[in-house]
């Protein structure tokens, strides 16, 4: 009897949690007012680069490129004192070939390519099956998943150039 009620309780918790997680699953349209919290640029003007972090409470941060989103993500205390990585519900980046928002975890980031974002060299989000094409077409240097990107990679500005040489 007791075991069963625990199970029910567990199921309920899972259900509620998923409901909470599922709350902000939709990517947002950048408005004309959204500014990148890292560089201060208006996000709206380069829609094919927009990245966003959506928090569990429904608030969000819009970025003018995945690079700034990564900087923010890996240095939350500096840019947003009220939130931690644990508060994040979803991270979206705009996939290069479709220009549509995709979850950052489901995609590959390519650095060292000749594709320039609004802030120069970028971590270009490319869907997994097109990474090869992108590497050839745009002289991509290195590809990595979201989880593999370290804070140290971001601090050295010229990292992508370095990888270019390897290529």
């Amino acid at each position, binding site marked *: 009897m007791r075991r069963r009620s625990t199970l029910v309780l567990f199921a309920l918790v899972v259900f509620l949690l998923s409901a909470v997680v599922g709350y902000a699953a939709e990517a947002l349209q950048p408005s004309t007012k959204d500014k990148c919290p890292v560089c201060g640029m208006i996000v709206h003007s380069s829609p*094919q680069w927009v990245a966003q972090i959506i928090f569990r409470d429904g608030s969000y941060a819009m970025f003018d490129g995945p690079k700034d989103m990564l900087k923010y993500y890996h240095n939350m205390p500096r840019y947003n004192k009220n939130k931690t990585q644990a508060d994040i519900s979803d991270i979206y980046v705009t996939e*290069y*070939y*479709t*220009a*549509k928002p995709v979850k950052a975890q489901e995609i590959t980031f390519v650095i060292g390519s000749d*594709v320039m974002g609004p802030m120069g060299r970028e971590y270009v989000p490319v869907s997994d099956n*097109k990474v090869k*094409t*992108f590497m050839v*077409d*745009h002289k991509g240097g290195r590809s990595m998943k979201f989880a593999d990107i370290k804070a140290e990679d971001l601090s050295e500005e010229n990292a992508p150039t370095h990888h270019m040489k390897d290529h």
Partner: protein
Amino acid sequence: MIKHYRILEYALSSLLRRKYKNLALFLIYTLIVGVLSSVMFLTHSLKSEALKVFIDAPELIVQRLSGGRHELIPLGYADLIESIPGVATVQPRYWGYYYDPNTGGNYTIMARTTSAELDLITGTMPQEGQCAVGKGVAQARQLDINDIMFFTLGSEQKLMLKVVGIFTANSSILTNDLVIMDKNDLLRFFALDKDKATDLMVKVNNEMEINTITNKIKRTLPDTRPITRSEILRTYENVFNWRGGMALVMFCGTLLAFFIFAWDKATGLSAEERQEIGILKAIGWETSDVLTLKFWEAMVISLSSFLSGVILGYVHVFYFGGTIFDPFLKGWSILLPPFDPIPYIDIYQVVVIFFLTVVPYLASTIIPSWKAAIADPDTIMR
């Protein structure tokens, strides 16, 4: 200040002494500035409009070339292009030209690509057996909605379409010579192959990828020629650039005429004018006073003509649709859209006209006078 005011009064009196000559000068000057500014206003507003409107032009048009000529493109190419990463959709376009023997006009025939409701049309978009025409076509053929329009090619190919829509007059610059009909009517009338289109329109998701896609199309389909939207925009930027093309032709003639006119003034002061300067010097005017006088004389003419000319140009272009240029622009075409340009103004161009006309005129008046004024009054008057 008071001194300048007095000298201005004197300058006006001396200009009025040669009333007719100066009036003629004023009129010619005004006319030249009027033509110059008309050219600039018209080309600038057409350019601005083209650049604003063709922002929504197709991102990529793929034509097929055969023997250096535009050729129909097989629909099979569409699948190849669609498989390139980054391509959203590929849509065939069907269009062509029709020479109308009755009116001598050339029409552009296009197949309907959309079923959307359009703002700038009275009536509706055509279904099979119907057509929508531009204002120019409607006027040339004296068509109204629900009239029947005939097309013939030789004796075999005939087409009768009911006019269901006429594009509004203010869209003429885009639609004046258009005839929009259903794809099946167009294919039947021009006897086109079912598996070929005039060209392919490619939609691209990320505009940064357009160039890569263009290069891939050129590589995989060497007999094609992709035309990007930025090339369309650049074409119109160049056509209406006031430093080249259309504007330059009209511009150069007028400007040269002006320079001859200013040069003529610059090279010779009349004996009368020399004598006047001599007398002024003799009664005690300083050289600087004489120059101020000449400056004001030139300023009265050039400033008032310049301002009148710009006003004339503006009114000519934006109220009367640049009618003077019609014969230039029309050439051999039967259908020329009536110009009703949106007044986009570039102040910089007005400043350029100012420096091209007022400054040379001032210089050409003052420099010879200065030469006369520094000479001994006795020698001048002798």
